[in-house]
């Protein structure tokens, strides 16, 4: 007996009980359709995330942060030398710092506080900065050009990105310089120093308590005057640039794009000659580290909170991550994050699969019931098949194939219905997205693996449901069956 013979027998037997078979198949169709529709949502989301990661080149991006001191290691800083060191590592294509600062922007007669980010031209040409709504990147690291993001566009109340292209952008910062802080420390102006000297009772200086109180008061006052001088005695620095491009503003975890992107050398002029008052923490950090000095343009004095390392296509992020971590830095990789997302998606899909499985188990009870009914009605036929030479194994397989056919047909129809449901869901979601002003994306997907799993799932569960009835059929005594008992 060939497999085709069994399929023929199964199809014939199922066809003669159209209504019963139809209702049983319907149970499987509903279960598989729900399973496919739900999993296609999971698969679609995973695809969207992967595409976005791919589009932005996040899979080849490793974010490096300074390393904290531990019992056995010292703290590591991210400096220009670190950048040079990273760029020499195997598999690294580009390294750029995340150099951000606050400034005041004047554009189209509007003044607003904004955050800016210094970038080299090569960094600006990476996929992460490739999603332009209008315009282009700036042409060189020293050009008086700037790229802004859609966030600034929104802050300005503009909708059309082209409006900003070619506009003058005046950026200004007020910088605190160490000179003014030192003057305040000595308090040389307005006779303050002389006044404080006169206030000291020199006769009492032999008294240790008086001496301590004078020293303590003077030290506290000096620190207060230094900070006060640093914060308030600022000098304005301004640059006028032309807006050449508008990027879609994005934020992907630790990789974000500030409102204004500036050529590196322009940014240095604005923020590199002193400490920006908008970033007091930088000043405190610098003071703590003892690096604060008089005005300087020395490259090695700059430290960064974050450096982005881009890999070549063939490089392994695990290897690069391990190498950088061995240098004492902290790393973050989007490829690793995607692994986590995928893991979470797998759990999500397993949860959905479980719901689908419950629905399918319910449907399998229908299959088992149909098969048992069928066996009861076809007892004499089973006896006849045995008299013709069928083995108990043949009888078992015939009934397993019948339940398998119910499962397979149910699975195929279920996949089609599941796909239709996912298309309907996608249309509804995209309409809502469009209505909300979000670029519509298809968050449902029906990959081949899902079709295969759904088909296998439906067929295997149906075959399992047919196991008991088939075993029962195989145990039928042909003599009794032929007597019609």
């Amino acid at each position, binding site marked *: *007996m*060939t497999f*085709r*013979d069994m399929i023929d*027998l199964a199809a*014939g*037997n199922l*066809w*003669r009980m159209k209504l019963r078979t139809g209702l049983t198949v319907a149970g499987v169709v509903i279960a598989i359709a729900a399973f496919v529709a739900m999993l296609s949502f999971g698969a679609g989301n995973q695809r969207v995330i992967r595409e976005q990661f791919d589009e932005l080149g996040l899979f080849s991006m490793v974010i490096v942060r300074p390393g904290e001191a531990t019992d056995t290691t010292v703290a590591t800083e991210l400096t220009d030398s670190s950048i040079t060191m990273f760029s020499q590592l195997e598999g690294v294509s580009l390294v750029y710092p995340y150099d951000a600062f606050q400034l005041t922007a004047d554009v189209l007669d509007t003044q607003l506080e904004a955050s800016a980010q210094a970038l080299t031209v090569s960094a600006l040409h990476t996929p992460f900065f490739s999603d332009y709504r209008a315009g282009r990147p700036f042409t060189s690291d020293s050009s008086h050009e700037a790229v802004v993001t859609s966030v600034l566009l929104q802050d300005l109340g503009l909708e059309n990105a082209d409006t900003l292209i070619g506009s003058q952008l005046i950026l200004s910062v007020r910088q605190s310089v160490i000179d003014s802080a030192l003057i305040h420390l000595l308090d040389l102006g307005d006779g303050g120093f002389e006044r404080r000297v006169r206030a000291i009772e020199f006769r009492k200086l032999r008294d240790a308590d008086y001496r301590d109180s004078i020293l303590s008061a003077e030290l506290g006052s000096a620190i207060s005057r230094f900070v006060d001088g640093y914060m308030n005695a600022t000098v304005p620095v301004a640059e006028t640039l032309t807006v050449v491009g508008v990027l879609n503003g994005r934020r992907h975890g630790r990789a974000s794009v500030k409102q204004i992107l500036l050529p590196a050398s322009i940014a240095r002029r604005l923020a590199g000659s002193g400490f920006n008052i908008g970033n007091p923490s930088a000043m405190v950090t610098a003071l703590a580290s003892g690096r604060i000095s008089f005005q300087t343009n020395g490259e090695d004095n700059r430290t960064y909170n974050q450096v982005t390392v881009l890999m070549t296509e063939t490089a392994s992020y695990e290897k690069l991550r391990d190498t950088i971590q061995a240098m004492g830095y902290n790393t973050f990789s989007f490829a690793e994050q995607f692994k986590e997302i995928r893991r979470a998606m797998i759990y999500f899909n397993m949860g959905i699969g479980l719901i689908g499985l419950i629905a399918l188990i319910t449907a399998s009870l229908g299959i088992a019931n149909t098969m048992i009914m069928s066996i009861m009605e076809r007892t*004499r*036929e089973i*006896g*006849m*098949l*045995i*008299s*013709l*030479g*069928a*083995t*108990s*194994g*043949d009888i078992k397989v015939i009934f397993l194939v019948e339940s398998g056919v119910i499962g397979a047909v149910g699975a195929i129809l279920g996949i089609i219905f599941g796909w239709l449901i996912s298309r309907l869901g996608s249309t509804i979601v995209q309409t809502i997205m469009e209505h909300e002003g979000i670029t519509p994306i298809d968050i449902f997907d029906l990959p081949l693996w899902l079709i295969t799993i759904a088909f296998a799932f439906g067929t295997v569960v149906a075959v399992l449901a047919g196991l008991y009835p088939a075993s029962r059929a195989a145990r039928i005594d*042909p*003599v009794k069956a*032929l007597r*019609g008992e």
Partner: protein
Amino acid sequence: MTTPIIRTESLTRFYQRGPHEVRAVDGVSLSVSTGEFVALVGASGSGKTTLLNLLAGLDTPTSGDIWSAGTRLCDLSARELARYRAQRVGVVFQTFNLVGHRTALANVELALYFTDIPRHERRQHAARLLEDLGLGDRLDHRPADLSGGEQQRVALARALVKNPTVLFADEPTGNLDSDNSDKIADLLIDLNRRGLTIVLVTHDQELAARCARRVVRMHYGKIVDDSSTEPGESAP
């Protein structure tokens, strides 16, 4: 003396019905020669159908032996016994046992599913046999659209299509009117003349006398008479 194609020795088949033991076949020793037409006769419950089931490999004896062409059926595995049923014997039942949703042709073809005959040849074999039995215009008819006699001829074709060495017929005319009974009887006689060994189970003395050269009478599971006559003669 011709070669026995089937031989039994002290064959028994007992059933347990509640507290009672039913001795359906009780110590039967029988030998059927190649080309013989044997009628097993007896009243209802005499054990003739049970004996036929044992000979056809549908049932297993409680004790005793059955040899078919030198093979001891008790030694065969379940698969070998199925092969014996599929290739060496054909069985015709009183109730035809045709599959209702299959056509006459498909019913006959079904018997070849368990043989080695290639798929593409099965249909030809089945169609040819049905034509030989006068059902050439009924190939695509379902059993419900056929008369009783036609249904039994389809059942006969299904038993014969695999070219068996022995045909077992269990009350083949039991559900037929006299005209159709005669036609089936004629068919069986004709088949036997062509060399087919036939074991016919019937309670119809006339049919037995008309068809069989040898009539074996059973009573309470035992053979009480085994006599050979010329077809057409009355049994003693």
